[in-house]
């Protein structure tokens, strides 16, 4: 069932889909980045555009940056954010305002500087010969899938999107999905756009109707797991992006482990993208967001 693991070896990088082997070593760097824009895009969600030429030059879809938000004297861990889009010398981050760090992030203005570590983690990989991909996004899960949609389309791979969110306004990255995908099906909790309900409805339908060659999932872990099960049942290879609490972000502290069939792996370097088949859903996911 599913593609053998060794077939996951292309990275969806623009038109040139390069082959790079399974154990892609990421060489993150520490970059002083400047805020170019920081604006509200939906209730409690901001879009941060950073001038980060060195990170932008190499970041792949699915990778993330670790931002040092606080400029104060006090100690605060970095915060990890997927890169939603990279173009030229800038990277974009879609963030949900939740706690101390993201509240502070929301107050940053154009011209402010902070430092970022990145690119971090592995990215989404494309199975050899894939022609059609389904992207399933739940809430903020749209963030790392936006850049993937763009790159897949540029690489000539057909894209379908199933997207869910609490409300129409919170269907993020719509511009990228609309531009890249030949089909976007949405569901909202309140029915303000698309069908009423979870994204697992559209994803099941798209898997059945479109028979994609690969499914990419990012969202709340309970949703991710459900979609992974749908893909597995249909025998379609599936990759999932998982969130864990992260201290270092570079593989040193072991705070971010995910239990896999081959032992505990670090979400920050061995992930955040995992082959769904290898993930042991052990109940250690983060509590759902407010």
């Amino acid at each position, binding site marked *: 069932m599913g593609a053998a693991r060794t077939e996951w070896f292309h990275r969806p990088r623009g038109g040139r889909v390069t082959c*790079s082997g399974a154990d892609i070593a990421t*060489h993150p760097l520490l970059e002083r980045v400047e805020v170019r824009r920081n604006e509200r895009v939906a209730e409690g969600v901001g879009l941060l555009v950073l001038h980060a030429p060195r990170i932008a030059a190499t970041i792949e879809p699915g990778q993330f940056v670790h931002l040092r938000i606080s400029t104060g004297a006090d100690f605060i861990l970095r915060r990890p954010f997927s890169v939603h889009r990279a173009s030229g010398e800038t990277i974009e981050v879609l963030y949900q305002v939740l706690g101390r760090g993201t509240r502070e992030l929301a107050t940053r203005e154009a011209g402010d500087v902070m430092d970022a570590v990145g690119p971090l983690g592995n990215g989404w990989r494309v199975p050899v010969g894939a022609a059609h991909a389904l992207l399933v996004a739940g809430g903020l899960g749209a963030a790392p899938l936006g850049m993937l949609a763009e790159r897949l389309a540029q690489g000539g791979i057909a894209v379908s999107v199933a997207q869910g969110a609490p409300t129409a306004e919170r269907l993020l990255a719509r511009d990228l999905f609309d531009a890249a995908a030949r089909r976007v099906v949405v569901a909202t909790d309140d029915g303000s756009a698309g069908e009423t309900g979870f994204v697992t409805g559209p994803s099941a339908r798209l898997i059945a109707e479109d028979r994609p060659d690969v499914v990419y999932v990012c969202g709340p872990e309970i949703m991710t797991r459900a979609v992974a099960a749908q893909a597995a049942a249909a025998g379609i290879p599936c990759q999932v992006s998982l969130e864990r609490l992260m*201290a*270092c972000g570079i593989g040193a502290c072991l705070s971010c482990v995910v239990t896999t069939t081959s032992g505990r792996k670090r979400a920050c370097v061995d992930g955040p993208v995992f082959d769904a088949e290898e993930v042991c859903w052990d109940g250690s996911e983060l509590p759902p967001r407010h």
Partner: protein
Amino acid sequence: MDRNSRPVTSAAGPAPGLGVDLAVEVAGLDLRNPVMTASGTFASGREFADFIDLSRLGALVTKGVSCEPWAGNDSPRIAETASGMLNSIGLQNPGVEAFCERDLAWLRGRDVPVIVNVSGHSVADYVAVVERLERETVVAAYEVNISCPNVDAGGMAFGTACAPAAEVTRAVRAVTRRPVIMKLSPNVTDIAEIARAVEAEGADAVSLINTLLGMAIDARTRRPKLARVVGGLSGPAIKPVALRMVWQVAHAVSVPVIGCGGIVTGEDAVEFLLAGATAVQVGTANFVDPTATMRVIDSIERYCARNGVACVRDLVGALEG
């Protein structure tokens, strides 16, 4: 994607060269400066090689290694707290054999003194790890962790009473001539007493503090923030406790003290030296800034230059009454 095509990282530059003598000697090891990494916050250094020049470190202390592979605790394993963090990693490690093959092999020839942090569930465990490591020439010294609050058997239990602390020291001492550094727990009534006990059994140095046992609760979910419920508190929050203990222990023993706990800046490090530490370890700060160790080294040097301190050793224990 070619590895070499990636841009070179912004590794902090070489020491500013202010003519300050930063060298210290700890437990027979000659270190180019007093700044080490704290175990468990730096893996075996590989992850930091993109950011800093490892050979500029005084010493590199590896993540704790045990005889057999340990899976560590369930997730979530960390929680941020006021000026600090809790961790309950639980000494996850691949076991000493894999450690030698992967980590020590990588460290060979890196031109940095390697101190291996050793864990065990029993005295025999500690001994077995050290015996295996004796075959590895790259190992400069052992730091024996009798203070990890995150494992059920062993760990901190050895570090919270004199007799077991002494027993581990004696057993390890018996199987190696390399320097043995005992890493002490702060979760005790009288840390000076434990320090004296391990000194009496031949410890060449003591390092302190490991993490304070703590807990965090999510009021919203009503659950502990760590899957293991309790974990070890580190970071700036614990610095006052660490400084006090270093000061107490430095007065209690004659072997060198390695100070650790909440060090983020060069000034923090200087405070530990003044309190009586011969060297310091930078831990949690590495997570926030992967170049933290370099910043600390450079800033100690600048402190010395600015204050007319020709030799960093002159700061050790130089607290004025």
